[in-house]
């Protein structure tokens, strides 16, 4: 008798389960994001093909940009994009990490809550608004108070000489620095917050000051994540279009000074694509777009992996 009850309990009970059509449906819909990503890259490759076959790898190192002779090379734009992004990162990194350290502090929120809101609003302002502000307010100020004094005194240093201009690589870098700061500080703040509390507390317990704790313990622990945040911000800087197009001067050559006009990958597409005629010219511009999207996608994936692994390690 008892044995019979036991065997009945052990035997697996088969509950007939209807297929979860809702799950199938939502899973199907969720294809939208990955599918559009793949489709975008595929369409850009197809559109860029006339230029890819004509110029080959030489496209990336060519310095000529001539619509009349149909001769196109992307190096001036690659140069401008890399230089403006690098300068922007150099400016934004110390400021962004400082903001992140303050925002990540445990305890009362008050003033810091307001600071956080302000930094997030900085991210919400449309880039064209930064553009018009930079064009009419920042650029004249930069010329008068930074570019002219620096070229006068330090003009003998390479890349700091020449005739300073309002619309220049440097002005574009300044705008970029402002625009990537929120990304940098928000992601860094999350990483710093995920550093285990015990680490901070034990350091304070052996008598370290706030700054010693931050500099010798918290920041080294969050280093990988802050690096990830920096790479993420780099991706934003590379991709930024209109604000840069309005203040970089739009000159398709490699300048000899950061105070001279230049051009970036995104800006040349924005300015020239609507008027581009002919397969080769359009193809060259799309190929620039293709280079841009492939680089930013790689940078973004790298950054996401860095941030994720940093957080996972902090939580262990």
């Amino acid at each position: 008798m008892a044995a019979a009850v036991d065997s009945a309990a052990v035997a697996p009970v088969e509950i007939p389960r209807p297929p979860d059509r809702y799950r199938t449906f939502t899973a199907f819909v969720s294809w939208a994001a990955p599918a559009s990503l793949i489709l975008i890259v595929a369409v850009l490759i197809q559109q860029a093909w006339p230029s890819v076959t004509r110029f080959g790898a030489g496209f990336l190192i060519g310095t000529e940009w001539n619509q009349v002779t149909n001769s196109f090379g992307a190096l001036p734009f690659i140069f401008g994009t890399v230089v403006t992004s690098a300068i922007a990162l150099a400016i934004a990194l110390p400021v962004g990490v400082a903001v992140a350290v303050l925002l990540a502090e445990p305890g009362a929120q008050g003033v810091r809550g307001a600071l956080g809101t302000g930094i997030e609003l900085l991210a919400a302002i449309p880039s064209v608004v930064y553009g018009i502000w930079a064009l009419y307010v920042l650029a004249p100020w930069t010329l008068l108070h930074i570019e002219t004094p620096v070229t006068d005194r330090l003009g003998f240093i390479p890349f700091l000489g020449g005739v300073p201009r309002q619309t220049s690589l440097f002005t574009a870098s300044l705008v970029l620095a402002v625009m990537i700061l929120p990304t940098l500080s928000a992601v860094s703040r999350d990483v710093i917050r995920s550093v285990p509390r015990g680490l901070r507390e034990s350091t304070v317990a052996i008598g370290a000051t706030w700054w010693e704790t931050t500099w010798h313990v918290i920041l080294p622990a969050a280093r990988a994540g802050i690096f990830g945040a920096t790479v993420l911000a780099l991706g934003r800087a590379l991709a930024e279009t209109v604000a840069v197009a309005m203040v970089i001067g739009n000159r398709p050559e490699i300048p000899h000074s950061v105070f001279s006009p230049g051009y970036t990958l995104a800006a040349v597409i924005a300015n020239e694509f609507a008027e581009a005629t002919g397969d080769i010219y359009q193809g060259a511009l799309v190929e620039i777009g293709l280079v841009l999207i492939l680089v930013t996608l790689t940078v973004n994936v790298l950054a996401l992996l860095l941030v994720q692994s940093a957080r996972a390690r902090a939580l262990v």
Partner: protein
Amino acid sequence: MRHIVMRRFGNTFAQGVMYAFTVLALIPLGLVLWFTASNGLPAVSHLEFFLNSQRPTGIPGGGVANAIAGTAIIVGIASLAAIPVGVLSGIYLAEYGAGRWASWVRLASDVLVGAPSIALGLFAYALVVVPQHHFSGISASVALAILMLPVVVRTTEGAVGLIPNGLRESGLALGLPRWRVSLQLILPAAAPGVITGALLAVARAAGETAPVLFTAFGNQFLTLDPNRFMSTLPLVVFRDALTPYKDLQQEAWGAALVLVVMVLVINLGSRWVLRRQIRLARQL
């Protein structure tokens, strides 16, 4: 070990530097808001600014009605596509999101957020403008829908994930099928978070210039037909700001002010709603 006085001094000094950097970071925000307001207010203080369409330089009484209508229609169509798809994807990630496929969707969404918006414009150009042989509002909607999608996906996932499992289980215990639990119990509970996510996506799309440059292209005249050239507010700012004419520059500042006010209202409002939502979810 250094003397305690030096260490205290270093500590105070470092803290001062940190606070100085943070103030430095907020200066651009203040400057952008101040200059947009002071330069844009003279433009928006005339009612014609919102009622009339753009006029060539030298002719008074021009406005941005064409751009406001264009922005509303283009972003509206983009929202009709992006919000339902994004919400359902977000629900999938929150409800069934443990597997390998879900992590691919998450990665793709996160990467798509960082994709250059100008490349989305190129994509929409190749997909819609080339076959149609003319620029159109609808092609801009395609580009903006892709831009909005990942934002909606991730905010929906976050909002639905906040709803405690008890609600889900009580629905299932009553014998409701999964889809009714999800759409009639969970989604209404998560609605404030989902709606603010959608609004943030709308704000972002309405402020984008790069994807509409060679899709909507711009139009001096008022049109409500999304199959034709259209203007948007960011396009007005971009084109007018680069002209040498004072009256058009004024118009650009006015359009910028309208954009900034819209973005500020949506962002501050959504922060308030989200904070309330998190508090309510804790009480459930």
